[in-house]
């Protein structure tokens, strides 16, 4: 089963989802983070898209497996299945469209209904480069994030501002949750396609996938 893993060197594999209203820039955040690309000519996402990138956290290689989902409400029939097993989420709104911020609470509820309680959530206010069109204040977003215990950052996929930071912060936080706890081998039904599943602490903790190794047997 693991023969090909040799060329794919990582210590942890974390599943992360990108959610939020249609047109807030989820796909461009993903392409900026994984390929350093941005496109003004991008198509609406139909269904789900997928990309990965590995980064270093402390001395470990952490691989993010990121699922980008269609934002339109009706697509949740398909996309909510992808929340399962996610240990991190970027919940994106558009700082120039207040309604996308108003909907954040609903997205969060939906996310929490489908995932582990300890999922690391980053509220992301994208399109922060459009300064004069701003419709959501940093204060409002910060207050929401504090109330809901999520992280918060404003980004611009266009200007490549904070995109790296937002993803890195999510992955670092997941990693710290994972490494803080005493590891305990378990068999999580929400296991990711590859690798060994490690349950950390009680069943309410963030589940992460660790490459087979010290804890697998």
């Amino acid at each position, binding site marked *: 089963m693991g023969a090909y*893993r040799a060329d794919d060197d990582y210590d942890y594999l974390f599943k992360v989802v990108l959610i939020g209203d249609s047109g807030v820039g989820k796909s461009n955040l993903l392409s900026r983070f994984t390929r350093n690309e941005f496109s003004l000519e991008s*198509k609406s996402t139909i269904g789900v898209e997928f990309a990965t990138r590995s980064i270093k956290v402390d001395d470990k290689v952490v691989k993010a497996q990121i699922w980008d989902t269609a934002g339109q409400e009706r697509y949740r029939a*398909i996309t909510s299945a992808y929340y399962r097993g996610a240990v991190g989420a970027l919940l994106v709104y558009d700082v120039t469209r207040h309604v996308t911020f108003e909907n954040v609470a609903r997205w969060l509820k939906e996310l929490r209904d489908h995932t582990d309680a300890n999922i690391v959530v980053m509220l992301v206010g994208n399109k922060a480069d459009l300064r004069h069109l701003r419709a959501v204040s940093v204060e409002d977003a910060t207050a929401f994030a504090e109330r809901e215990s999520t992280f918060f950052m404003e980004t611009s996929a266009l200007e490549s501002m904070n995109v790296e930071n937002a993803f890195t912060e999510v992955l670092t936080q997941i990693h710290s949750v994972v490494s803080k706890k005493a590891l305990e081998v378990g068999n999580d039904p929400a296991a990711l396609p590859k690798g060994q599943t490690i349950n950390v602490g009680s069943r309410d903790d963030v589940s992460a996938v660790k490459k087979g190794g010290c804890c697998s047997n």
Partner: protein
Amino acid sequence: MEKKRLDDHEAATISSPRSLDRFGFLVRPDASTSDGLVKSRSAQFERIREDRRVRKWRKMIGVGGSDWKHYLRKKPHVVKRRIRKGIPDCLRGLVWQLISGSRDLLLMNPGVYEQLVIYETSASELDIIRDISRTFPSHVFFQQRHGPGQRSLYNVLKAYPVFDRDVGYVQGMGFLAGLLLLYMSEEDAFWLLVALLKGAVHAPMEGLYLTGLPLVQQYLFQFEHLVQEHLPKLGEHFAQEMINPSMYASQWFITVFSYSFPFHLALRIWDVFLFEGVKIVFKVGLALLKYCHDDLVKLPFEKLIHALKNFPQDAMNPDILLPLAYSIKISRRLEELRQEYEKKNGKITQSRELTEEQTVQRL
């Protein structure tokens, strides 16, 4: 500033004309061949062959389609065979309307489209506007902001949710409408969309877009089983790697291959799709997997997903892929799987029956 960004971007596209392929899509400088035509045949030979085909087709359909129904009744197998070889591009728009039943709908409902566009409003207008520039963004007709392409796309997409509020506007419809608009007028495109979603000739497809996307779920269920049965080794590999068809095939069904496949291939699929129904979408999907089978079975999860979204050029050559698709027989099994799915999940209810009376009554 967003506006400025877009304007700058537009100015750039207009002032430095980039090259277009024969369908009007911008050709990326790194793309080798835009339409995958067989290069070895000389262009002249192609043209002579094409002329001959057009003449045959003109004879078959008659002036403005007048002989079509007669010919179809008399020689359905000839029609089927010719459509499978591809409808000549210059007749495509007309033939699509004839085979989909949309021409009849249009004639039965004079003035209705205009009414829908001009006098009624839809709750989805803002959603539609946001998606307009994200539909075939690399096609010259849809590129210009507020240009004729974007305006007609907006009108068709706005008219549909007014026509049927239960279905409403769903992302993905734009690719269907956009493809149609490259071959026919707004009004014709609208009625063809109605014919497809309401099922004028084949089973209605509105379930692709209704709340819960019930038909997408059913098609994915059927497709997954067909993969397991026709390509057992690959089916097993998918199961092992936890790949399910919603990861790669939902777009195939929701947009009938118009979202991300080469346009010349999408058109050939649409020729058959409009005449024979959604079966061809399953067959093409299976043919793609079959063609790439030996590579796919070797790939691990991530590479597999990537491969399933980026098929190689040679796999997408219609003259290779389509004959392979036609050779896969699935009709009986597809129907059995539909029944099996319905037994488990209940029948998909239609939002509203399509009758002339109701169409007119609504206004």
